[in-house]
């Protein structure tokens, strides 16, 4: 079975996470669960990858974190997207469309 190349997808982890956060604020495990579900089990993000993306994007101001008590009474860190993050996401979408358009021309059907 062909597996996804982590080198390629690395550049788009941020885009994936920002897309999910633009729908609703969320926390680590929920995001990784949604990624797995939306990709139909084809892509599974590792915890360390996810955390490093959170950390980097928070430093860049794309997302904000806040603590919230979850249903089960435990404190959890939630993340939400900022306006800067939203703009960055749109840019990434344009970038991907272009990339896809270019690469597609070189792929044998």
């Amino acid at each position, binding site marked *: 079975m062909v597996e996804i190349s982590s080198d390629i997808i690395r550049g788009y982890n941020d885009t994936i996470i920002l897309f999910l956060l633009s729908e609703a604020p969320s*926390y*680590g*495990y*929920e995001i*990784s*669960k949604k990624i797995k579900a939306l990709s139909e089990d084809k892509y*599974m993000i*590792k*915890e*360390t*990858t*996810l*955390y*490093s993306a*959170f*950390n*980097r994007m928070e*430093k860049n101001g794309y997302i904000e974190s806040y603590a919230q008590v979850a249903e089960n009474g435990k404190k*959890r*860190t939630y993340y939400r997207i900022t306006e800067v993050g939203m703009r960055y996401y749109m840019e990434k979408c344009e970038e991907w469309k272009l990339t896809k358009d270019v690469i597609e021309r070189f792929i044998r059907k």
Partner: protein
Amino acid sequence: MEALRNYLENMFANLPNTPEVQRAKSELFQMMEDKYTSLIEEGKKENEAIGIVISEFGNLNEIADSLGISNVVEHPQGIERRHVSKEEAHHYVIEKSHCSFLTGLGVFFCIISPALPSLFEDALPEQLEDALGGAAFFGSIAIAVALFIYSASKMKNWSFLKRYPCSIDYQTADELYKAQKLNNSTKTLHFIIGVLLCILWLIPVSISDALVESSYLADNVMPCIMFLMVGIGVMLIIFSLGKDKAYTTLLGLNDQKTVAGNYESTKSREVVYSNETIANIMSVYWPTVRCVYLIWSFLTFDWLITWIIWPVAAVIHSLVKKNFTEVA
């Protein structure tokens, strides 16, 4: 769940203890915990769930850059730390408490040695009396010295704990911490009985003084009983502190600058008083006690009695510590 905690703690053990690293650790644990819980809810077995979580965890290189710790992750540890395994740690505790018992026993023999010859006085013909008395005196000192040498040589095997930098892992630290807490009441009990014996020798001695004028019992046995009680008391005090010291030594092994040095279980080594006045008083407590002891002793020259200050001061100290400290 404990297994996941151990996995994560051991992975982070040698990283510097900075807020960023602590945050990463707690965030990652949150994710692992969530994933584990939902796998269990899906009906996975515990081992299976742990296996999945760990295999999908990734590795620290991924977060190293964003935490500014790539240096540590790529070139682990500036100094090589000798790892003390769980078995070794438990073995050390047993041996240390064993040796502190033997040391205590040695001190006991030292204390009773001067009293032994008096047991033979007036009870036997004169030449025998001196010979047996002397033999008992030197005999018990010899036993004491033998015990000291034996326990010192036993403890020598463990001198690496002090000479080399060592470390213990999270699980060991956790277990030791719990064991130390469990041992606390035994320790206090031994300590209190020990201190009481050091003080209460006055009672049988003064009772016999009051009741019997002069007899073999009052003149020869009673001093012996006094030394015996003090001897047992001191032995108990030494023994009670030995095991606790072993736990404290082990829990203090990890480098304070790393995450490992900051395990919840190793943190409470420092005493923090909840009340500022008490804290101020306690900071000069032992020097004051020492001054009072010396002044009283030199003014009255009752050295035989003034040492009572020490056990009494120790009891007051532990009472204050118990009632006015908060867990840091």
